[in-house]
């Protein structure tokens, strides 16, 4: 009597049954593909949804990181009309002041600060070229805090703020162009050392920024996105001198003006742990010095954490959707397996007569279901990979839109594992049913 180790015997049986299952799948290609369609779609959905979710979340996180996790952004916000609307034509003065900027320096954990004056879309001209862009008056520190990359020339330097050795009124008329502006102004030549016209004054181009992704708009409505590519940077001092502090807007016939000293101050804090407390300190400082709520404090770190929380919620939702589609797929498998059991009753009878035990029959049909779902899962993974790599490519090619997708390697194993589990779960009942058939009845079955 030949007696091998039971484990080896089991493995041998497994291999045989898998080959048999694959063979019968191949024999009934159409039926098999229809029955595992649910699994295929489910798996592909898990992989692609996870990839797109991960991709967009990744983009959002990158975006926040670009703003700087150790940064605090303080902005001027036009306060709501407080019933003094009769003074329609008067100039509204609000926002951060130079005094505020000085006060921020006194907070001990602040190691860097950048003041910004933002002059809303201005015409930038050079010969026949014209472009509308944001003019930003700022200082050299802006480069570090916003991690500005230059393709040529230099960014603003501290010396640009100094008086003298500039034009007739001692201002330095230099500017650094964003990539889009540079492209529009100087399509065929290097902009360095050339001049552009801003508000009737000539500015010498000293540097050009590398193209970069815009940072997303910050939660609150008052805080707009930073674009970079459409910006022109000039020294803060020059900006004050050339544009002044009042900006007049013509609005439905009425002229209204506003006077803002600084539109934004970006503060850098020593480390991430300090960001919250410093943010509170800054708020406190502003509350004490401003009568109106004409300022806003944004801490990107808060957004980072909110985004991470959202990512978790998103993952839970995805798992839920995936489990629904795989559940539906599993029902498809169960349905076809039940039909198969009926169809193969005679085969079951033959096998039973030739010595198959109940558990052999259970095992056979279970393996068959698992093979079906895992083959379906494999095709689903392929389809999912196709979607993850194909759709963003197509979107870029045909619609010129950026669709972030980041393949999650874990999702492949997860969805394959779940497919196999679905096979076990939904193959169990039909397999049990097959094994319970009476061999004599089964043999008589036509």
């Amino acid at each position, binding site marked *: 009597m030949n007696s091998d180790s*039971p484990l080896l015997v089991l493995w041998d049986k497994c291999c045989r049954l898998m080959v*048999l299952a694959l063979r019968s799948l191949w024999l009934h290609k159409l039926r098999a593909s229809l029955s595992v369609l649910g699994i295929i779609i489910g798996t592909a959905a898990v992989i692609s949804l996870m990839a797109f979710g991960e991709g967009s979340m990744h983009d959002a996180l990158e975006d926040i990181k670009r703003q700087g996790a150790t940064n605090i952004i303080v902005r001027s916000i036009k306060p709501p009309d407080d019933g003094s609307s009769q003074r329609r034509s008067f100039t509204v003065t609000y926002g951060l002041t130079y005094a505020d900027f000085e006060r921020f320096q006194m907070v001990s954990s602040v190691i860097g600060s950048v003041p910004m004056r933002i002059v809303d879309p201005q015409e930038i001209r050079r010969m026949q070229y014209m472009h509308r862009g944001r003019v930003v008056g700022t200082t050299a520190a802006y480069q570090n805090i916003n991690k500005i990359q230059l393709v040529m020339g230099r960014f603003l330097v501290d010396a640009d703020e100094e008086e003298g050795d500039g034009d007739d009124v001692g201002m330095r008329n230099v500017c650094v162009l964003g990539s889009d502006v540079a492209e529009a102004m100087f399509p065929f030549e290097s902009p360095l050392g050339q001049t552009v016209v801003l508000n009737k004054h000539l500015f010498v181009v000293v540097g050009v920024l590398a193209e970069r992704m815009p940072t997303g708009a910050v939660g609150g409505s008052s805080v707009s996105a930073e674009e970079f590519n459409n910006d022109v940077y000039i020294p803060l001092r020059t900006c004050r001198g050339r544009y002044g502090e009042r900006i007049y807007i013509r609005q439905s016939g009425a002229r209204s003006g506003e006077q803002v000293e600084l539109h934004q101050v970006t503060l850098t804090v020593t480390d991430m742990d300090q960001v919250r407390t410093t943010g509170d300190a800054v708020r406190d400082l502003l509350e004490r010095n401003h009568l109106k709520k004409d300022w806003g404090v944004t801490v990107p770190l808060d957004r980072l954490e909110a985004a991470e929380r959202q990512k978790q919620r998103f993952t839970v939702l995805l798992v839920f959707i995936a489990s629904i589609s795989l559940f539906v797929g599993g029902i498809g498998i169960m349905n076809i397996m039940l039909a198969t059991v009926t169809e193969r009753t005679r085969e079951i009878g*033959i*096998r039973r007569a*030739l*010595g198959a*035990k109940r558990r052999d029959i259970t095992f056979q049909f279970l393996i068959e279901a698992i093979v079906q779902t895992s083959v379906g899962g494999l095709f689903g993974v392929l389809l999912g990979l196709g979607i993850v790599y194909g759709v963003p490519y197509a979107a870029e090619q045909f619609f010129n839109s950026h669709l972030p997708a980041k393949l999650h390697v874990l999702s492949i194993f997860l969805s394959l594992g779940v497919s196999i589990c679905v096979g076990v779960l939904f193959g169990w009942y039909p397999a049990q049913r097959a094994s319970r058939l009476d061999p004599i009845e089964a043999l008589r079955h036509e």
Partner: protein
Amino acid sequence: MSFHNYTPVLSTMPGVVRILDLVKNYELEAVTVRALRGVSLTVEEGDFLALMGPSGSGKSTLLNLLGCLDRPTSGNYYLGEEDVSEMEDDQLSEIRSRYLGFIFQSYNLLAQYTVVENIEVPLLYQDRRLSEETRRRCVELAELVGLGDRLDHRPMQLSGGQQQRVAIARALVNDPHLILADEPTGNLDSRTSDEIMQLLAKLNQAGKTIIMVTHETDIAAWARRVVRMRDGHIESDEPNPHPNGHIALVTRH
């Protein structure tokens, strides 16, 4: 007791098959069908028994019981020295895969398997690995029944006679103590029937114990012993002094 390594001890001593007062009742909705009403029978090793009788006589029920596919309502069935009538389902499967060979009227081959693979099936359930050796044995058996050149054919590609030969090879692969044949020639023409019966007679002469159900007298004429049944009883049990194949083989050599 683990069923896994369960190997019943069978002696091939007096009587491969001994059944004592076997009763089988089928409980239908309202009535109880008494298929076997106390049947006793002993089959010696090397016997070739033809079981005859009109339909409803209980011969199929008896064959199912002999084949360990069913359990009797009462009575005992000793296969060798084992009392099979009390066994669990798994133990019966074990008995079937080790000690019994089946030949059916409609061949009952597995359509998705080739000839060799079909012959191999009973070995699949013997809790051992299939080796090159077992595969060789299957090929030898296929050659024995005259299908050495059709090893990789599927049942659909074979004639009825050829399919039945595969079934016979399959019934031999586990070297059974008892071969059970249920109208093995029922679906075949007379010439093919003859060939199949010659094969069975040859096996019997080589020492195989065969019990065959048939309702054709000229098929029963191949057996050494003819048992006739009626209404769940054994009506007659007579030896056949001149079985067909025996003479044929004797005259041939």
